[in-house]
């Protein structure tokens, strides 16, 4: 395995993916969950760009990445808005208290 840019980015994709999912599994704070989602999406964006680059389709990869950023921002905004509302209604951002719907 050579130390090429592509390899570094590939490691980055996997690393971000791992960090993001670790965040989703381990954090208990709602804001951190939204942050973890953001990290996950960054991994996907990097992946798209990397794939486009490796196939010589840089424009394709980049245009996809930009679209994803737009959509992802909307999701983040809604997520944070919901988090604010959760804080108001539940009085906490702890995920464990956000488990009234079960069974």
């Amino acid at each position, binding site marked *: 395995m050579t130390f090429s840019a592509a390899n570094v980015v590939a490691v980055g994709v996997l690393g971000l993916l791992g960090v993001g*999912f670790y965040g*989703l*599994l*381990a954090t208990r704070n709602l804001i951190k*969950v939204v942050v973890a989602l953001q990290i996950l999406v960054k991994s996907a964006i990097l992946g798209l760009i990397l794939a486009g680059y490796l196939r010589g389709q840089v424009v394709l990869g980049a245009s996809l990445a930009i679209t994803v950023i737009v959509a992802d921002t909307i999701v983040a905004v809604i997520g944070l808005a919901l988090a604010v509302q959760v804080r108001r209604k539940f009085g906490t951002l702890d*995920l*464990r208290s*956000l*488990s*009234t*719907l*079960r*069974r």
Partner: protein
Amino acid sequence: MVPVFVLLTIGLPWLGALLVWWVGNNHPRLQVSAAVFFSVTAGIASLALLFDTSSKAIISVPLGGVFGDFTLIPDGLGVFLAAIATVIGSLAVIFSIDYMRGEAQLGRYYALVLFFIGGMAGLVLSGSLLFVFVFWEITALCSYALISFHNDDPKAVAGGIKALIITQVGGIGLLAGALLAYTTLGTYEISAVLEKSTTLPPALLSFLAFGFLAAAAAKSAQFPFHTWLPDAMEAPTPVSALIHAATMVNAGVYLLARFYPAFAPVPGWKLAVMIVGATSAILAAMMALVAYDLKRLLAYSTISQLGYMVYAIGAGGVFASQFHLLSHAIFKALLFLAAGSVIHAVGTRDMRQMGGLGPKMPLVRATFIIGGLALAGLPILNGFWSKELVLESGLTGGPLWLYLIMVLGAGLTALYTFRGVWLVFYGKPRSTLHAHDAQPAMRIALVPLAAGALISWLAAGPFSQMLAATLPFHKIEASSTLHIAEQVVSEPSTLVALLVIALGLSVWWQRQHLTGLVTTFKGVQNAAIQNFGFETINNSITRAVKNTGEALRTTQTGLLSWNVLGILAGLAIILIILAWGV
């Protein structure tokens, strides 16, 4: 004209069901009149069909795709069962006028009864396996809804759901068989299955044969699916008479009779059918012997008598089984309706609280005894002729040991029938129940049925000719009533059976002197009271499913982290499966 009558037989009750529902509960008189009108006219239409049967499809509508053709065939077997459904159906509706008077939600009651009558007629008249299954399910749905009619009573709700689930589980046999027949033969036509059965691969044919046997056993409350019928007795009594004695429970017997020519060569099938029938007949007779609930007694006796019909088919006696079906439909409907009059009058089903009711309700007693004598198989009532024919075909077409079991069953039948009659109508009154004789509408239903129990056997000859003419694959011998009667009387087996029946009667007569015998059979008696353990099996299956459902609910933790873990686990499993390469 025939297509019109066929459509009227199915369509009139359904139209009536819609109308009764539409009229609503605020117009009870109009509602009841509509129910009576539509059921009686359907009955007349079906009786008209009896004179013009044929083995050809008279209505055929292609539905396209995998749904085949919708066909209706007015052959002897179908028309005869449709006539039973509509005629006894209209008598049950008439009986209900008095029996159900003043109850709430009568619209639902009459609509469902009419819907059932139409569905039952459709079941026996359709020539396509898909639609046999469709109507099969419709009758199961109506049966469920009517068992649970008094749905504020948890016992009625439980009985309904039990009946639905058990018959549906068995129905899967019919479903699978119909699908297999379609994918192999490319058609749902029953006649095609009968015609091409010899060309089918043997494994496939036995799948069909045993699948249909399972479906029939569940529908006809035969061993090992028989447990639902006694619990179905929570239904209003006219419904028990119609659905759970005279018609729907016969659908299983009908199915076996219909396919007998195709399945008879399947190794082991005939013996399996006979064993299912004989086991049901003997076990249910024993349970009837210890029952104290009047309706449950009749339910056990229905299981037992259906066992006789199933046994007859296994022994090759298709005509005997259908003849017994006719007799049984009449006398058992009579018994149920008479029992309904008793229950309506005294307000309980417990025979321990009855006794000595005879003088207060002479008509009910007379009709009940006629029904009871027919059930016991005493000459010259219709049950005698048909039961003797069943036993005779068992002797010629089946092993001797099964025949002996069935003869023993006949003795037990006589014994429990007389025990029931005695407990209800004779002896000293065991409680201060107020009783009155049957009301007018009830009489209108009881008297024709009692007459039927006395004379319906006279139709044996024409009935055999009708079946012989329109069932080309069954090879039924056309005969005359006189010939059939001669045949029954001249057989030595008739004498044997009569002796055993007389023995059963004398056991009841001499019961005070036979206490030693009772203690000997104490174990059997206890087992019979415990339903021979079948209830326990049912309950443990139900409990296991419920507990699994409850346990699985803990996987729905409500915690986001676990949910995300589920996604990752799903991905991992799919990746592993793909890497493995299925």
